[in-house]
């Protein structure tokens, strides 16, 4: 039974106002004509124009997207392998250490991860740049991917895989033709998560970056350290817009797929 209560409605309204108002204010002020970010001087798209003429931001955005694409793709492959090992691998030597190394980066403060990776890169004499940031991002995001994919693998009916093996499929084919299509939604959300984490990361990228590999968060951080800037408001609005469209589309697509699947399952049951 669901009771309509003023208390619940109020707490939801206030709660969501708190979650969304700061971003709404940011979006509104990105259209402010004034250079002074706190004085409203009429509607203008001036800062968006300035933003697109700013080579440094465009370069940083391109670096960030490249880093996020490479690191999330490698992390998805490694994370899916790691999840498979964790859930299906059985016992092997060093398993405890392995699961420790999968979970520890999830709770490790970013400053420590960043510092330790930088000291490694310096220790082995590796030049810092896009490659080192990709390596760093891959390492922490593969752990997130592995957690997401493991939870799907645990819920997965193993007899399907065994049936494929009994019917003569090689282990690799069984994985490719049976397991992978079933865990695909988890693999995709793992990739999206890794991509977002990489886009978002400031601390680890600051430690591991080098000349020519300034990512967008590093650029934003150095620009806002001294205060609010209208260009950053415009940039933030664009990023918020992209994320909103992405998340809403993804959830609509998955919802439709789920409805579709339910319908097919019903039809299949009726047929038997």
């Amino acid at each position, binding site marked *: *039974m*669901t*009771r309509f*209560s003023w208390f*619940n409605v109020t*707490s*939801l309204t206030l*709660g969501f106002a*708190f*979650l*969304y108002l*700061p*971003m709404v204010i*940011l979006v509104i*002020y990105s259209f402010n004509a004034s250079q002074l970010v*706190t004085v409203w001087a009429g509607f203008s798209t001036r800062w968006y124009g300035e933003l697109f003429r700013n080579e440094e931001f465009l370069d940083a955005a391109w670096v960030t997207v490249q880093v996020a694409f490479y690191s999330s793709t490698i992390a998805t492959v*490694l*994370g899916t*392998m*790691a999840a*498979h*090992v964790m859930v299906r*691998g059985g016992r092997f030597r060093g398993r405890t250490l*392995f699961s420790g*190394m*999968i979970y520890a980066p999830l*709770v490790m*403060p*970013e*400053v*420590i991860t960043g*510092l*330790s*990776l930088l*000291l*490694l890169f*310096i*220790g082995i004499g590796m030049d810092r740049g896009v490659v080192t940031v990709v390596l760093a991002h*891959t*390492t922490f995001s*593969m752990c997130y991917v*592995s957690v997401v994919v493991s939870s799907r693998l645990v819920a997965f009916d193993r007899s399907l895989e065994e049936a494929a093996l009994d019917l003569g499929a090689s282990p690799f084919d069984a994985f490719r033709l049976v397991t992978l299509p079933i865990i695909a939604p988890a693999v995709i959300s793992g990739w999206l998560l890794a991509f977002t984490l990489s*886009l*978002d990361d*400031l*601390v680890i990228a600051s*430690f591991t970056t080098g000349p020519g590999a300034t990512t967008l*968060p590093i650029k*934003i*951080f150095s620009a*806002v350290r001294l*205060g*609010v800037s209208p260009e*950053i408001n415009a940039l*933030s609005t664009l*990023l*918020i817009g992209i994320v*909103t469209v992405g*998340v809403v589309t993804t*959830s609509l697509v998955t919802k439709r797929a789920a409805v579709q699947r339910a319908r097919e399952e019903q039809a299949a049951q009726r047929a038997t």
Partner: protein
Amino acid sequence: MRRAVLIVIPYLWLLALFLIPFVIVLKISLSDVALARPPYMPQLDLSEGWAGIRDFFAALDFENFVFLTTDDLYFKAYLSSLRIAVTATLITLVVGYPIAYGMARAAPEWRPTLLMLVILPFWTSFLIRVYSWMGILSNEGVLNQFLIGLGVIGEPLQILNTNTAVYIGIVYTYLPFMILPIYAALEKMDESLLEAAEDLGASRLSAFWLVTVPLSRSGIVAGCFLVLIPSIGEFVIPSLLGGSDTLMIGKVLWEEFFSNRDWPVASAVAVILLLILIIPIVLFQRSEDKAREAGK
């Protein structure tokens, strides 16, 4: 054979890029600062064979850790990180619980939408969400203009660059981590239990304290740890919203490394931060295991 490859690749990756770097931090935390590149010593000299290794280990010491105890800046920073993180976690709980409660009691057809509205900020850049408060809390910011416009205050309040702003930042950015586990616990709850309590004469408030809160305990515990653990080592929030007197250990480590260029001390700060974090992490792991056992 194929199985071995599957294990070895992610294993080696994590060894090389997670465990070994950490051993290096440990090693450097025991070294001394040097005016050299890299700026610490001793360096392991394998060309001298055993003697090189022996000299290397002989030169390691706990000097940096002793230094951390003599300068009370570090002790204060650890303490104040813990205090800020614990306080902010409790505020997040107080703010997040009613939201999670309202979501769990909303009509079922609304719940997926509400859930998505809580998750959406999580996908939005952390840095931008922290930054959005700078324009609100500054002296000429939206909040001060609003309050002055209403006539509530005459002078702008100094909120940005204080610990209050840090609390607001932590509560705001980590709120979804608090709401989601509590919502998950409350949603599973059987509401007829509340009706039973009220039938047996409990007031609505005491039914809430005696039935709802204990049943959502697993969610509360999980939410608190999920907020507490990352906020202890937080860097972005104190450096954008905090003031020069906001001491948080993540910021100290960053400055020790980038401004003072004292790598051995930065490494020692990192080692101690990790030792402090192990306590809540182990407690969290235990409570999760317990919850899993109870769920079986």
